[in-house]
Structures are given as structure tokens and as C-alpha cells.
């Protein structure tokens, strides 16, 4: 008999990067001891550049002090992947889930994250595809629309994916995105001919695609005050 699997989604609005990082650390620890179920954070960040464990800061094309002048922060993280940018109008999902419970390894997990974004793009008639070997992420032609950077600790995931709905793409000019030179970055707004609904709707669709890709039987939602009390319970 298969136990039904529930995904708990936290709808969080715009969250400072370090706050989200701290929250994820607490959630990973709580998930590890089965204090919480599989949890998905849905949010956006203020303009933020981040680096992965390999610290590939040669892919930052402007001196770090200049970033303040353009209103952006820079953070070094433990996730996989190269340098990337997060900002308003980019949908970010941080799944904190147990890969052991569903028998997935890193490769399959990342493939399903790619499929999540590909499926969302298809809702807007955009034909996206996964990158070639070594180019993890989601592309439309050779323009990148979705990025992935993940950390797996005790088989629990953190960090996740970022999908460009309509961010200011100029911010990407200050980096070599994901360390891949001479490839453009794009967004759903640029690629689709359809009118886009409110962002919240697109984010909810992205969450539904995730839930479907990962075979969850049900999804429960938390936002606002119920998130605050959940946070204090795990701190």
C-alpha cells in the first residue's frame, strides 16, 4: 500500500536571500528528523547575485563593490552550479524534500526540475528543452529561461530552481550566466505570444507542474501568518 504523499507549499512573496537561506537550513534540519513533510518555498528575491560551492567569481564581470550601486547583493553558497542572478519577476522554488523517500538520485531530481519548467513554458506555447550534457537548465533555442542549483544533504534537497517570468534581463549583463559565455538569457515574456496573467497565477502553475512531476497526491498551502508560526516552530 502506498502512503499518500503531501507537499506543503509556502507562498512567501519577496524574501531577502540570506533570510531564505537561513530558513532553508532550519527546514532541512526539521525535514531530516521528520518534523515537517516535504516542503516547497515559492518566492522571489530582490536583485541578488549568487555563487555556488566552486566560487566561480571570475564569472562576475563587474567589481563586487559596484554591485551596491546597481542595488544588488552578492552571496556565496553551498549549492551546485555557477554564478546566477535572482530578482523581481523571476519565480524561485526551493523544494526541501527527501530524495530517499522517493528513491531519486541527484540526476533524476534535477531532470524533474527541468521538466517542471519545461511543462510550465509549454502552457504558454513556448517550446523549452533541457540543456545538453553539462548544461543543466532550461532553454528556448539557445536562450536560457530557467536555471537550477541544488544542494543535497542527508538526501534532503535545498536551493532549487529559478524561472524567468519577466525579470530585468539587463542584470544578467554583469555576469557570465552559469559560466556559459555567448548564450543569451530570456524570459517567458520575451518568448511567448500569449498575454501573461498575474504573476501569482504563473507561480501557482509552476508549483502545480512541480507537484505533478514529483507525483504528489495532494498539495497544502501556507501563507502570511501561518508561515510565521511555522517558522517559529522549527527554529
Amino acid at each position, binding site marked *: 500500500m502506498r502512503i499518500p504523499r503531501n507537499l506543503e507549499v509556502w507562498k512567501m512573496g519577496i524574501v531577502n536571500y540570506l533570510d531564505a537561506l537561513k530558513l532553508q537550513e532550519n527546514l532541512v534540519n526539521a525535514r531530516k528528523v521528520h518534523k515537517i513533510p516535504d516542503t516547497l518555498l515559492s518566492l522571489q528575491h530582490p536583485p541578488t547575485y549568487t555563487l*555556488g*560551492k*566552486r566560487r566561480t567569481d571570475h564569472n562576475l564581470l563587474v567589481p563586487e563593490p559596484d554591485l551596491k550601486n546597481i542595488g544588488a547583493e552578492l552571496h556565496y553558497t*553551498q*549549492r*551546485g*552550479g555557477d554564478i546566477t542572478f535572482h530578482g523581481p519577476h523571476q519565480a524561485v522554488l526551493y523544494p526541501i524534500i527527501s530524495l*530517499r*523517500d*522517493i*528513491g*531519486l*538520485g*541527484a*540526476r*533524476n*531530481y*534535477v*531532470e524533474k526540475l527541468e521538466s517542471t519548467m519545461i511543462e510550465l513554458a509549454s502552457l504558454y506555447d513556448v517550446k523549452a528543452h*533541457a540543456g545538453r*550534457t*553539462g548544461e*543543466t*537548465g532550461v532553454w528556448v533555442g539557445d536562450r536560457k529561461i530557467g536555471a*537550477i*542549483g*541544488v*544542494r*543535497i*544533504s*542527508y*538526501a534532503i534537497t535545498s536551493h532549487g530552481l529559478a524561472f524567468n517570468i519577466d525579470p530585468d534581463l539587463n542584470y544578467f549583463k554583469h555576469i557570465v550566466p552559469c559560466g556559459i559565455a555567448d548564450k543569451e538569457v530570456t524570459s517567458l515574456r520575451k518568448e511567448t505570444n500569449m498575454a501573461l496573467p498575474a504573476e501569482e497565477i504563473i507561480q501557482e502553475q509552476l508549483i502545480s507542474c512541480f507537484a505533478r512531476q514529483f*507525483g504528489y497526491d495532494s498539495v497544502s498551502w501556507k501563507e502570511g501568518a501561518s508561515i510565521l508560526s511555522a517558522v517559529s516552530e522549527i527554529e
Partner: protein
Amino acid sequence: MATMLLWASRAASHLRISVFTRPFASVVKDLNYADSHEWAKVEGNSATVGITDHAQDHLGDVVYVELPEVGKSLTKGEGFGAVESVKATSDVYSPMSGKVVEVNEELNSSPGLINSSPYEKGWIMKLEVSSGGEVNGLMDADQYSKFCEEEDGKH
């Protein structure tokens, strides 16, 4: 048979589904295995540690290995480094307690050794082990094979 397999692989990669070119990941007898998919080869009070074929297969192509510092003391189950593949960093855990006496520097230039030779050229670190008895808490080859089967059967 070979051409059919080649066609199947090409078709599968076009459709992006998995083709099993071999039934199960390989397991080496006489090694000891942790449920976090690391292996330990104990010889006297020295243990060589790496990750298993099952682990490297599930990770994908390894592009970076974070090695522990020589001289560091580790307790059984403690994180000692990480492996990066497909934009995912996966923490690795020491199957035994001991002191790191050597790390495989070759992994800095050739991280793919973990994929091509997980039990030999892809070894990660050597420990001076303090308690030989800890091996009893690890699985043998047959137990580990069964463990992997059960894990993979979950989805």
C-alpha cells in the same frame, strides 16, 4: 543485439527516458558499505573511502569534488566533503571514525574518475581508523545490493 541497443539508446535519449544498459550497479565484495552510499576498504588500521557505483550512477557526471583536509578527525557519519554533478552538490559522509591521512588529489583535475572508477582510481580519502569494530555497523556487499534494490524500488 548491439545495434538494437544503440538504436534504443539513441531513441531513448531523444525521448529523454532512461535505458538500462546493465541491470544493477556493481558492488565489490570485501568492501563495507554505508546506507549513504559510501564504501570503506579496511586494511589493518587504515581505511580507504569512496562512493559506490550506485551513488555515481545516480549523481551523473561529477564535475567537482570537495576533499577533506589532511589531518582532520572525523566521526562515523560526519560529513567530510561534497561531490558536484548536474548543478547539484551532494554531501558525503564518513563511514568510519578516524583521521584523514591522505586525499586523492587527482580528483581535483579529474573528478570524472569517480564515475569511471568509483572503487579504485576514484577513491576519495584514506583514514587512520581508531576503532576497527565500527565495520560491524556497515553493510556487506550482499546487504548493500539488496539495500539499493529496495531504495530504487521506491518510485
